[in-house]
């Protein structure tokens, strides 16, 4: 009987480990882009782009001021805007489910162990 209990406990531990493995193998939650929050004040502040490399001072000075009264776009940007930071595929939610699954396995295994021990104690 003791062997049965021990093997049940071993199986439960295996279940917990099996569910915990993918969670630990997962990459840490993604670091959001450090896109500079555009500020409302000052011309210079708006020129600090998302890249931390502050090497383009010349471009900053060469940039014309925004059109005050002139109509139309005074500076045409280069290329297409990158307005989509790809969704983190199942990162946070996935971890939550893994943790939930592991916790459920622990609870179920504990319940099974208690059940076995009590049955054994009662001599059934």
């Amino acid at each position, binding site marked *: 009987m003791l062997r049965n209990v021990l093997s049940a406990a071993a199986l439960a531990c295996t279940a917990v480990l099996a569910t915990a493995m993918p969670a630990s193998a997962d990459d840490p939650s993604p670091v959001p882009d450090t896109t500079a929050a555009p500020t409302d004040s000052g011309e210079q502040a708006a020129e600090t782009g998302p890249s931390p490399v502050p090497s383009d001072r010349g471009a900053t000075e060469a940039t014309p001021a925004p059109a005050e009264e002139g109509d139309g776009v005074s500076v045409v940007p280069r290329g297409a805007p990158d307005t989509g930071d*790809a969704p983190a595929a199942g990162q946070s939610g*996935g971890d939550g*489910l893994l943790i939930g699954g592991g916790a459920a396995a622990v609870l179920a295994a504990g319940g099974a162990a208690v059940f076995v021990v009590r049955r054994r104690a009662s001599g059934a």
Partner: protein
Amino acid sequence: MTPFSRRAVVAVAVAFLVAGCGGGGSGGGGSVGDGPAATGAPGTGASAAAGSSVSGPRPLARSVPVGLEIPALGVDTPVVRLGLAPDRTVEVPPITADDPAGWYRYSPTPGRPGPSVILGHVTVGAYGDGVFRQLARLRRDDGITVRLENGTAAEFAVTSVRTVAKADFPTEDVYGDTARPELRLITCGGPLEDGEYRDNVIVFAALRATTP
């Protein structure tokens, strides 16, 4: 095997099942349903506002936009200012929860003649959907209202919605001069390729009314 040892084995098996469901759910929940492909809805047309006449509401005085409403999409968001990134591409709004839209400050203010350009994210990474997540669902004549700093508001009507490959971004259509006040809303769309969206969704709109 005695009856209760059998029960113990059954209990452990249940534990396995429960754990397995949790793990499986995580794998499926990450990318199902809200994938970027849903955003890449085909555009409703290729022409911008070319068909409309130049006449319309009188242009508003210059005043920077502070808020944007798109009733058809349930969008009501503040608007920040955007400039140029060091690589001369347009800046984009910050990646945050409840990300705002951003007005490209080298474009006319909304309600002034010319194309006023406002950008927003379709998704914001771990934060989920961006403010312009549903932009591709806009249809012709849907209303867009931009609130300006001086208390006035410009109401635009959608003239077309286009989904274009970023490689073929229609710079002239978006930033080119127009005789009347117009609006461009831009976000990303299409399928994800190497973690980046392949397309841009661009909404073209023309001034329909103003609120003093």
